[in-house]
């Protein structure tokens, strides 16, 4: 039997619509599931149910061969026996323990010597040298985040659960830590479940993305699938990024990178080095359509392609263009008529470099 994770739970809070989550995905050594959706969509409840901190009134949770929850068979494995690493949104560091004390807190089963060695390993891995005796309140946000992660990872859990791992950080730190965290997760080779409401984080971390809205799992799939082929209008609205394609960096100049996507070159924002493979993300509303061969604008990217489809979305129309890769643009009905767009017509799609987000993986 292939290793897999099965989540099928119902949890009701008084006065709110019930949360139903049914997610099943195959697990290899370090598969990362991202629970993605707006606040109040139930993602944290699913994560806390995985941790054993929330008890759904009905359902099943299976992790590989172990059943953690089966309400019918009255199986309820407590958090202590699940061997998980859990990092809540605000880290929940123990204020009366030092950094080393926090990291060593979950190592009760090791001998004192092994414990010291493990804490030292973690301090090195998470670059906390010199802070071993500091109290959590003396640390910066980024350091606190690393201590919380080190504490969760130290007991060698079989699954890592991260609730909005970057939301407590300020914006500049967040971008830097995002990359570090991705590298660490790869290095640790540890399966994880990550909750986020930020699409850049979802695309950075997710091998599998489960989109949640209003208490339901709306779509489960690979990042590209979920973002480029949302199952319905609700998912499209939540993800908000219509074009997600793979590319590789061919030129790098201080954060402005040139990427090649299936023969087409684009300029976009991203600090990834030359040769790195990236996800190229473009929101349909950031794409401007012009008559093919018309005058230049200040936009860095002008892609010529042919229209492959048009889908009305309220007063707007989503136009799909094949310019080496499928690109979605959102235009008004008026603009569509001005450009006399129909399936097969040639068009130039323009977008600023700032609208082309590159996400390293």
């Amino acid at each position: 039997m292939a290793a897999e994770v099965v989540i099928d739970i119902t949890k009701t809070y008084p006065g709110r619509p019930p949360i139903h989550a049914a997610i099943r995905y195959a697990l290899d050594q370090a598969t990362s599931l991202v629970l993605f959706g707006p606040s109040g969509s139930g993602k944290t409840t699913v994560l806390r149910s995985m941790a054993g901190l929330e008890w759904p009134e009905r359902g099943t949770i299976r992790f590989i061969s172990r059943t953690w929850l089966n309400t019918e068979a009255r199986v309820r494995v407590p958090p202590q026996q699940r061997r998980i690493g859990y990092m809540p949104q605000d880290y929940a560091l123990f204020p009366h323990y030092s950094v080393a004390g926090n990291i060593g807190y979950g190592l009760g089963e090791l001998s004192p010597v092994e414990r010291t060695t493990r804490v030292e390993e973690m301090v090195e891995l998470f670059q906390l040298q010199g802070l071993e005796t500091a109290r959590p309140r003396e640390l910066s946000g980024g350091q606190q985040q690393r201590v919380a992660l080190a504490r969760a990872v130290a007991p060698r859990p079989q699954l890592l659960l991260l609730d909005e791992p970057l939301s407590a950080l300020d914006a500049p730190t967040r971008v830097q830590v995002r990359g570090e965290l991705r590298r660490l997760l790869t290095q640790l080779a540890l399966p994880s479940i990550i909750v986020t409401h930020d699409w850049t984080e979802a695309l950075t971390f997710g091998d599998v993305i489960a989109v949640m809205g209003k208490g339901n799992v709306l779509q489960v799939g690979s990042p590209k699938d979920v973002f480029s082929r949302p199952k319905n209008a609700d998912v499209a609205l939540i993800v908000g990024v219509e074009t997600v394609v793979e590319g590789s960096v061919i030129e790098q100049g201080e954060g402005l990178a040139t990427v090649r996507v299936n023969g087409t070159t684009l300029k976009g924002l991203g600090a990834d080095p030359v040769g790195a493979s990236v996800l190229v993300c473009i929101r349909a509303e950031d794409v401007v359509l012009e008559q093919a061969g018309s005058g230049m604008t200040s936009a860095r990217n002008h892609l010529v392609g042919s229209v492959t489809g048009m889908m009305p979305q309220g007063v707007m129309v989503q136009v799909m263009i094949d310019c080496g890769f499928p690109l979605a643009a959102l235009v008004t009905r008026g603009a569509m008529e001005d450009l006399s767009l129909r399936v097969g017509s040639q068009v130039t799609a323009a977008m600023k470099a700032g609208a082309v987000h590159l996400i390293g993986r």
Partner: protein
Amino acid sequence: MNWLAIGVTVKLASLTSLALVAIGLPIAYWVTFSTWRWKFLVESIVALPLVLPPTVLGFYILVAIGPHSPLGRVYTDLAGHPLPFTFEGLLLASILYSLPFAVQPFAAAFEQVDRRLIEASWTLGRSKVQTFVRLIVPLSTAGLITGVVLSFAHTLGEFGVVLMVGGNIAGETRTVSIDIYDEVQALNYAGAAKTALFLLVISYLVLLAVYAMNRKVWSAWPRK
């Protein structure tokens, strides 16, 4: 001043506080973290000594531990003498009488401990007991000290319960407050005044310590 009575009182108050740490901590933990819907029934019983006249409480304890009750018979068989009008009987009554003074500050302090810290401890493999010892108790020190000190001070000044359950046996159950009453009955106002002042000063100092600690005017406890 009657040093014998002071000795009995201090011994009684110390043992009561000590016993209340042992009994009060689990009760306070249960009161704070239980999700049982009828929890308030237990909470009201624990708080009963706050409002019940000490003579009423003393009367029921006296009946409950008297030689005609099942409890009293067991004790008499084991110890060879009945429980009322002994120091042990008085201690038992004091523990019940001061229970809310320990349990309520303990529970209030536990309530203040961030639930997320407790959950983090569970996910790190620590059992509920380990979490209590390593996390909840150290983060509740101010409340624990308040509970110990308040139950100590409350036992120092108890009168009605002592009279009902302990009687007035010098060196055994005659506490400071009984001694003051005796002095006044004997029209020895000077003796009563001295002992009363002693009790007033001690009680005031104890409360001073509790309030100062909760305002964190001393830097022994780090500020949040």
